[in-house]
């Protein structure tokens, strides 16, 4: 009999303990703690091997290897519409804390070009992690030695100079050049820009088909080392760090007060829970501060630029405003 009472007491204690345990967890969630309980998906809105894909895969790798996030993270390539196919997919995952995507300035360009209804405001900006900058290069034996010489010639006879880039007009390689050239006083509606999307933009510069190559800084380093091309200017606010990178003059120091940043960060679907936002914000901060990610940054020639959730929104609003007026002037915005 005693035994039975003891046993039933034990059972009651266990039940209460279990209930308390549950209660603790429940109260945790109320206080706003979020821990992922399913695997997390990071969408790269383009094919394998591009900038978005590389960023997403290296982030997922560091999250896993450094044990920053315990859950499995899968990178999914959703190609199409310059990103807009993936964006509509994420947009439909309202409130889900398990579907993230990586993005960069095309999230501003593509809506401005009228190719999607969605803008950054239809998503939850979580954190920016990387900054990449543009470089404007010419052949080693070109007659220009700095941006001002080039822009002076462009003011005089815009039809004599052709700029090449990998993206189409109204997207990154074009707009980064336009932004700097406009500040220097060039009539941006007269700039001759050709897009070479088959990977031949650098070739076109080297064989003299075109005069100026608008690209990312990392693409120019090896060619500069080999004395094939020279970089007239980069779009960063200050000189970049690194062996060859530090020799590139900024547009700013040449008296052209404009910068362009190819930011790259992570976003979630609309209406993400505050607790999930702060969870990811913290994790991306950890990622950004980790040595493993610093190593990846230096390999790809990226700069560190962490921007948290709240400031990110403001940053995106500013970027959008600047680019909108520029694209309206070019007649590209819809």
């Amino acid at each position, binding site marked *: 009999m005693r035994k039975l009472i003891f046993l039933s007491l034990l059972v009651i204690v266990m039940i209460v303990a279990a209930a308390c345990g549950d209660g603790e967890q429940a109260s945790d969630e109320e206080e706003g703690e979020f821990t992922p309980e399913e695997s997390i998906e990071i969408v790269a809105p383009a*094919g*394998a*091997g591009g900038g978005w*894909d*590389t960023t997403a*895969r*290296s982030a*997922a*790798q560091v999250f896993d290897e450094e044990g920053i996030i315990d859950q499995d993270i899968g990178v*999914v*390539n*959703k*190609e*199409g*519409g*310059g990103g*807009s*196919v993936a964006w*509509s997919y994420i947009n439909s995952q309202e409130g889900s804390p398990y579907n993230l995507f990586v993005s960069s300035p095309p999230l501003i360009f593509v809506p401005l*070009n009228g*190719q*999607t209804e969605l803008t950054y405001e239809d998503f939850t900006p979580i954190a920016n992690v990387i900054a990449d900058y543009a470089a404007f290069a010419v052949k080693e034996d070109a007659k220009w030695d700095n941006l001002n010489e080039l822009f002076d010639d462009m003011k005089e006879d815009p*039809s004599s100079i*052709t700029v090449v880039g990998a993206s*189409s*007009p*109204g*997207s990154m390689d*074009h707009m980064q050049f336009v932004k700097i050239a406009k500040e220097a006083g060039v009539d941006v509606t007269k700039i*001759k*820009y*050709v*897009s*070479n*999307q*088959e*990977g*031949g933009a*650098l*070739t*076109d510069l*080297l*064989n*003299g*088909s*075109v005069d100026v190559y608008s690209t990312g800084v*990392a693409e120019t*380093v*090896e*060619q500069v*080392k*080999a004395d*094939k091309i020279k970089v007239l200017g980069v779009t960063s606010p200050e000189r970049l760090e690194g062996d060859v990178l530090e020799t590139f003059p900024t547009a700013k120091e040449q008296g052209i007060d404009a910068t362009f940043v190819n930011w790259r960060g992570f976003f979630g679907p609309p209406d993400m829970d505050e607790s999930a936002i702060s969870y990811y914000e913290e994790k991306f901060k950890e990622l950004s501060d980790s040595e493993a990610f610093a190593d*990846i940054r230096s*390999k*790809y020639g990226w700069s560190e630029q962490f921007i948290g959730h709240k400031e990110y929104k403001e940053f995106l609003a500013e970027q959008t405003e600047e680019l909108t007026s520029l694209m309206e002037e070019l007649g*590209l915005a819809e």
Partner: protein
Amino acid sequence: MNAMQGLLDGFQIAFSLEGIMFVLIGVAAGTLIGMLPGLGPITAIAIMIPMLYGMDPTLAMVLMAGVYYGAVFGGSTASILLNAPGISGTVATAFDGYPMAQQGKAGQALAIAAISSFTGGTVSIVLLMLFAPALASVAVSFGPVEYFALMFMGLAAISSLSEGSTMKALISGVLGLMAVTVGIDAQTGTPRFTFGNANLLEGIDFLVVALGLFAIAEVAFLIKNRNDDSLAKTQNIGSLKLTKKDFKEMRGPLIRHSPLGFIMGVLPGAGATVSSFISYITEKRFAKKPDEFGKGSIKGLVAPETSNNAATSGAFVPLLSLGIPGSGTTAVMLGALLVLGINPGPLLFQDHPDVFWGVVASMYVGNLFLLVLNLPLIPYIAKILKIPRPLLISLVVMFCIIGVYSISFNVFDLYLLLIFGVIGYLFRIYSFPAPPFILAFVLGGMMEQSLRQALTISNGDFIIFLESPIAIGLFAVSILSFAFPFFKNRRVKKAR
């Protein structure tokens, strides 16, 4: 360090235990990836990159290169057996490879493809080894003007792809040109023929068109003619043995298209797909019996199969000597090199000779492996055809769907696959040839873009096309290829 010493060091890497292992894993994985329709080397290598982190750069490159040329090698299998191109570089292989298989000569076709791949691969590695640094200047010699001329030359031969009515071939080609304009126009940023559908903004993927027009259309045709007894012999695999006459037939195209494919591979933007088409049409244009092409001609199989493998090695020239990726796959490899701590550029050859020579040496070994792996397997692989037809057809459809979905993870592309399948089926019923469509689709996009790039540069002046000796040469060949059949006809008539 001289070339001989470099190559010896390279072989030391390639013949080390790890070296052999990585070559073997690379080519085996590549063959398999190539065989599966849709799944291509780009995706495979991109997914591999995080795993390469911290690996020895030379070995990692050996592995990636193995996947790349292994896939081009293996891609011919599905083209020949099922009319479902394994990768975009082996679409032209199906033109004559599949008819051969249908005539009960599947084993022979696979053997010819393997030997052609091996020859194209090996000859081009010799060229790569001897001339890579010197060829760097060739790689950058092509600007928009020259590319336009090259694509023009290819399209000029479109009528030669007709089987019967030239008019039908031209209509098919024009439809191909129309299909390739869908999507955002690179020169203006304006969407064309997308009907407000975001899924069409990036245009239509080449493999979706190829699998639809060839594989799905063929499946539909087989279902329609399921009771036709004449199809029974397609289950025969035939002998693997090639006769002396076969080898004699193969010799010409092997000699011609190894260097041609290699040069095309060297040009950034051309690559295995364009080279296989250009090789096929030039071979047909200048053939003594062009009528046999498209009906199981050995020459028609050897030309693209030699060319695409040769182009694969050629693509390493701009990558390793200039740091310029000439194709999607080499672009991904360039990214991988960065991860491995190697900056690909004009100085790579000087700073990391071991990477260059290691890759070159491993490619000799890899190609040999591929031949040794593939030849004995042919009878077993060809047994696919023994699978009861209803099951085989379902499998082909399933693999096409998986393959297309794996390109973009977008269900919309599956509808496109179906649409192109219907178009391909209608083509067959009304005897419109599909090859001109696919040729125009491959060459037309680049032709239009390079034309407009050139005219933007010249401020609209067409004289720019006559200022380049290379372009003039290519235009001359185009005119020659127009005129050649007429001359030949007259000669034949005179002889009679």
